């Protein structure tokens, strides 16, 4: 009866990371900003959350502070790019480096245990034990609910006039400027929002694994890229509006990726090889896509 354990773990972890994948997908696809900051805002959010919770702050406050920290990291990346004209990737790398040191400073150690403290999963713990001793059904339901809420709000927000203006700034900055849209402000707000979302992923991950570690963000970028690529491959852009296509691809891709990884590890894939395998997987999917429909998905104004 252990064949479904990887499925269970894959879905739970997939849901947790889907917030970060959604964040990466939105910045990459809708804002045309391949934002590396997520790799830093995840541990940053988790550290702020952990230290506040440990020092006795109320749970909602700790979560809010984590979102704020992630948002600031994103805003900083955007500011470095739009104000100092530094390349998008380099701006992200600089903020990742800043976050790393900040995490160590904030936590005062390289990790903090959270097992005895309030958890986001507390309300569903009893239910979970009552339903099944194998399945983390309570966590999955709670995470799905949060994700649905979050994706719903994002979808609605992106279809309002403000959301359309934000997407115009990302899709064609020069055109946006000619319409009187303030492109830098929109990019700063956009990245602040996506990185707050990534920080939330960090909070969930810390809660789920019971500790915060300064290295917990490492590899997220590759994971997000893999998940997004898989999701975009599985869905048809033609049937959905572009924002819903990106949102759905991020969520579905994240779930599929984590379930596949969970099974691969179960069937003997050494976790040390995981990054290599993921990178090759991304390349295969991308190569397949390019050979099939050219650059349909990656058209950007030259």
């Amino acid at each position, binding site marked *: 009866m252990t064949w479904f354990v990887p499925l269970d773990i894959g879905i739970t972890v997939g849901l947790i990371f889907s917030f970060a994948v959604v964040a990466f997908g939105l910045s990459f696809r809708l804002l045309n900003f391949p934002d590396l900051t997520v790799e830093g805002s995840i541990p940053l959010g988790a550290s702020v959350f952990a230290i506040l919770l440990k020092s006795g702050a109320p749970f909602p406050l700790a979560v809010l502070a984590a979102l704020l920290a992630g948002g600031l990291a994103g805003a900083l990346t955007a500011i470095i790019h739009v104000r100092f004209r530094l390349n998008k990737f380099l701006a992200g790398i600089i903020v990742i480096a800043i976050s790393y040191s900040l995490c160590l400073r904030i936590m005062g150690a390289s990790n903090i245990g959270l097992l005895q403290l309030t958890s986001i999963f507390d309300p569903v713990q009893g239910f979970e034990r009552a339903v099944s001793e194998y399945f983390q059904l309570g966590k999955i339901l709670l995470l799905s609910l949060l994700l649905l809420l979050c994706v719903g709000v994002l979808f609605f927000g992106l279809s309002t006039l403000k959301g*359309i203006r934000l997407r*115009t700034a*990302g*899709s064609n900055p020069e055109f946006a400027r*000619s*319409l*009187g849209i303030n492109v830098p402000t929109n990019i700063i707000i956009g990245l602040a929002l996506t990185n707050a979302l990534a920080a939330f992923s960090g909070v969930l991950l810390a809660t789920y694994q019971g500790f915060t570690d300064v290295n917990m963000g490492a590899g997220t970028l590759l994971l997000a890229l893999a998940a997004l690529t898989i999701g975009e491959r599985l869905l048809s852009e033609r049937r959905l*509006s*572009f924002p819903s296509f990106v949102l759905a691809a991020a969520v579905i891709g994240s779930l599929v990726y984590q379930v596949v990884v969970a099974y691969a590890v179960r069937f003997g894939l050494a976790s040390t090889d995981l990054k290599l395998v993921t990178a090759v997987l991304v390349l295969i999917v991308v190569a397949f896509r390019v050979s099939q429909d050219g650059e349909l998905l990656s058209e950007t*104004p030259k």
Partner: protein
Amino acid sequence: MSTNGRILSVNNLSVSFVRWGQEVQALQSVSFEVTKGEWLILVGPNGSGKSTLLNVLSARLDPNQGEIQLNGRTIGDMSAQDMAENAFYVHQNPLLSAAPTLTLYENLLVSDIHSHHRSEKKAQLLEKYTALLEPLGLSGRMKQPAKTLSGGERMLLGLTIARLRPGSLILLDEPFASLDPGKLELCLKSISDLNALGKTIIQVSHDPEVATTLGTRTLVLNQGQLSLDVSGTKRSTIDIQAHWYTTTEKSSVHV
């Protein structure tokens, strides 16, 4: 405004920039005035400064010298927002004339000042946009992203966007480049519709025929200087091409 129907006045405009270590004088002491409702064709050989002039007029490039007044206000003092409300620039590259990942509907919505003030409901807006796209054969593609349109179709979308903008000055950089005859006709119709609606148009072209048959006035730019400014019926009798080739040859003697 207190400018007797004058929408634009360009005074002693000079622009130079350094390219590959050499100073290039793109515009030299250019002065002219444009009255509301005019359809100006700005013509000249490659490198004559046409696009530079359009870039300065749309505040995308700062002049080294001189002043431009748009609707009675100096362009250098206007905010990006002010500029967007007074003038609209349609990019030479039709792929840049709209946001590629937004649908046609969203592109029109974000450009339409009426949607911002919520003075019209969604159904009304949709009906209005359908009516605008219908003659262009694009009304059935309202929900498709702009990137699915061909270059020519995107130019038509850009001109439709120009129509929705509040600005009375429309700047067009070579709108006819790479259009098939059918699209050319639709594009021409769109521009003359814009003009008929009261928009002032400054259209850049390198085609001497366009310069004498379209619009209401022709300006010839040659090596950064205005070498000809004619309006009315006289235009059809002028051999513009001969004009700019002679001056180019003349100046090349000095180089």
